[in-house]
């Protein structure tokens, strides 16, 4: 958990870019949330299920077809969402600001060419591919452009090229925790005066069998029957496609250019509990909550909960101990966007604060309930499916 001096500067969220299975842009996503719509494909990967990406007009954010061709799906999603965030903040094409915008991207890796893998594995199992033939096959079949699309830092690289963001460029890896720490460090730099404006976020492509395989090895994929996050009894997550980027800005910088905030980002904290100790997550969340400084009776929680067995159960215990706080799990509607899941919860919290409205409950377990009065603070909570916990506090700027 990070400690931070009290004399920190005020940080605003001045831009949000969001694309998901529910739609392209803030209005489409907000409308879908209000109607309780869920977009999940139960057939294509059955018994597994994913939340597929809504159609995007890529040309509107990635002008050159050549740039689009140089990217894989996750990079196109992210570059597109980053463009939406810059538009939303009103700094798109503002070269002077973009040249000093600090960027932190939370990223996994890129898609593999599954046909190449299939062919090699089939030949290896049949016993007719030695080391020489293996090398030859890779030399002939791997595509150099695919390698670049697989590199974790090339989402940030593409955002630099397409949108001209060039103040700094850092890519954090490490699943859900990468999304938390990207936000935390971008915020901390602004709060401490090390940065004025930052673009931070992540993107995820759910339609990847090699990713499904990785999570299947750990037993984390939701299968057969869909259920809301709280009603899964630890059966795991359905991966979701989407991209989420935020523009964070010092209040001074934002006011200096007349920018309107979605919300004030008051604090961001993260931790690493030992998951081998029962109760570790719950106790870590308690410490983070204490460090965060939210008003107990004035907050709602938007959680990036995964639905994975131990983490979500312990998070449930933590939430039950704060039983008066209204809760929404974003994973029910959007699926699990891994690195982007915490930024997603924070983006929706900011949007809700700016619109003075919580999204309605979307849950059959009874944990998510209607509220009478809109709180003016919302806490985004993240508990990784394997490691990492975090919280961020936003409040309305009156």
């Amino acid at each position, binding site marked *: 958990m990070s400690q931070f001096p009290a004399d920190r500067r005020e940080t605003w969220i001045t831009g949000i870019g969001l694309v998901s299975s529910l739609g392209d842009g803030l209005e489409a996503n907000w409308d879908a949330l209000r109607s309780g719509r869920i977009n999940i494909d139960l057939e294509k990967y059955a018994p597994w299920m994913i939340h597929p990406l809504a159609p995007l007009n890529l040309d509107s954010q990635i002008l050159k077809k050549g740039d689009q061709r140089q990217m894989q799906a996750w990079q196109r999603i992210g570059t597109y969402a980053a463009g939406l965030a810059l538009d939303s903040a009103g700094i798109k094409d503002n070269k002077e600001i973009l040249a000093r915008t600090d960027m932190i991207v939370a990223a996994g890796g890129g898609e593999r060419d599954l046909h190449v893998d299939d062919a090699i594995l089939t030949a290896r199992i049949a016993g007719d591919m030695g080391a020489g033939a293996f090398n030859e096959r890779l030399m002939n079949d791997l595509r150099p452009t695919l390698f670049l699309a697989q590199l974790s830092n090339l989402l940030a690289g593409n955002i630099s090229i397409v949108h001209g963001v060039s103040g700094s460029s850092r890519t954090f890896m490490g699943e859900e925790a990468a999304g938390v720490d990207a936000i935390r460090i971008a915020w901390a730099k602004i709060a401490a005066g090390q940065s004025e404006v930052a673009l931070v976020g992540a993107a995820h492509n759910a339609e990847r069998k090699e990713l499904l395989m990785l999570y299947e090895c750990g037993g984390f994929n939701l299968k057969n029957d869909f259920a809301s996050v709280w009603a899964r009894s630890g059966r795991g997550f359905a991966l979701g496609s989407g991209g989420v980027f935020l523009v964070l800005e010092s209040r001074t910088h934002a006011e200096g250019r007349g920018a309107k905030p979605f919300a004030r980002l008051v604090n961001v904290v*993260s931790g690493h509990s030992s998951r081998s100790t029962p109760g570790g997550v719950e106790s870590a969340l308690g410490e983070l909550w204490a460090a965060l400084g939210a008003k107990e009776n004035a907050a709602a929680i938007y959680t990036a909960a995964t639905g994975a067995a131990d983490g979500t159960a312990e998070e449930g215990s933590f939430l039950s101990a704060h039983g008066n706080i209204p809760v929404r799990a974003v994973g029910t509607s959007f699926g699990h966007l891994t690195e982007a899941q915490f930024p997603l919860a924070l983006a929706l919290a900011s949007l809700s604060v700016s619109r003075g409205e919580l999204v309605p409950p979307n849950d059959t377990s009874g944990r998510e309930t209607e509220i009478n009065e809109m709180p003016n603070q919302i806490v985004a909570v993240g508990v990784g499916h394997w490691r990492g916990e975090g919280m961020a506090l936003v409040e309305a700027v009156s």
Partner: protein
Amino acid sequence: MTGLLETSAPQKNERTGMTTTHDDQRRPIVVVTGMGVITSLGEGKAENWAKLTAGESGITTIRRFATHGLRTRIAGTIDFVEVKPFSSTTLAERLADIAIEEAVGQSGIGRKGDFPGPLFLGLAPVEVEWPQREEIARASGEMGAVDYDVLLRASANGRFSQVHARYLFGSVADHLCETFGTKGSPVSISTACASGATAIQLGVEAIRRGETEAALCVATDGSVNAEALIRFSLLSALSTKNDDPRSASKPFSNDRDGFVMAEGAGALVLESLQAARSRGARILGVITGCGELADTFHRTRPKPDGEPIADCIRSALTDANLTFGQIDYINAHGTSTSENDKIEYLGAAAVFGDLARKIPVSSNKSMIGHTLSAAGIIEVVFTLLTLEHQRIPPTINYDVPDPAIPFDVVPNKARDARVATGMSNSFGFGGQNVSLIIRREPG
């Protein structure tokens, strides 16, 4: 290093009135109190420094896997650390363990398994590797066509749970955080070949923010496997001088033909000067400036005029509050690719002017190869050793100078020199540029 920083009483900076535990911008001064390194030359600072200054190469013919049909068959592998079955991610983890043990040991900070600060880890992207993929395929029992539907079915039921735990991007940081007891959420970074430098930058920034008194910065790479080698080979980035591995890496030479992939790890214990002094730690150097700038020109190629590199160097000088005339030595990125070395010179020349021909500039990659994600931190360790020993390691294999790169590359033989301030540059795919400035003494 004796005699350095033996003053214990805080002194006032005349200009700012601050005590000298803070710099001119009133930020805590960040010092190094421990460092560790492992490369193809060997394990630990002593062995590496002896071989570096003797101009030895760690590049050899690859023995780890069959190289039939490959255009490049050489690398700076670390074969003296055994990982069975081989996994690049597991090797990277072991190398990081070794480098951190040395760094934390030298520093004497905290207690065993209880490091009093956060972890910043530079790491190559992680994914399931061929042996594991093939193991799952074999477990499927399928003898005909194997595809990911077959793999998906075979991966259920928990028998490959260790594959999940190993090939999460966060898995190496989890292990290091739990082994060394670092505090908070461990941060894994990929900024391609600048990752190690970015890890240091994040540590410096956290200490300057007052978030922590100490940070453990490490970067590691164990990437020499067939697929990774082939990927770089398909980009025509690698040297193909297979017949004479030791002379294949030729930074700044006219006959250079690409970089040589290599493995290694480096670790630094960073502390605020105040914290280091108060526990009486020996101070090995000061990180006085960090510069960074993203190049928006191309995914793999730097802008041909070198301006982003120049601006990156300028921002490091500004951060350190130094002028270019105060830099005594540049530890170059110097990969031995045609393009990098040329544009690195142009970028440096744009900042240093005529001095770019006079300041000694050497590339450790001539001896250890390109350690990719680890390079930025390993080369800072070597820059710190250069400051400590007042001796500059050479650029070896420099027989045919490139007339377009009139650097003084400290050719082939180490050189004794007065070096108070060094600069270490790292550039990576994706337009990543980081320059760090390191001094012997604070103030």
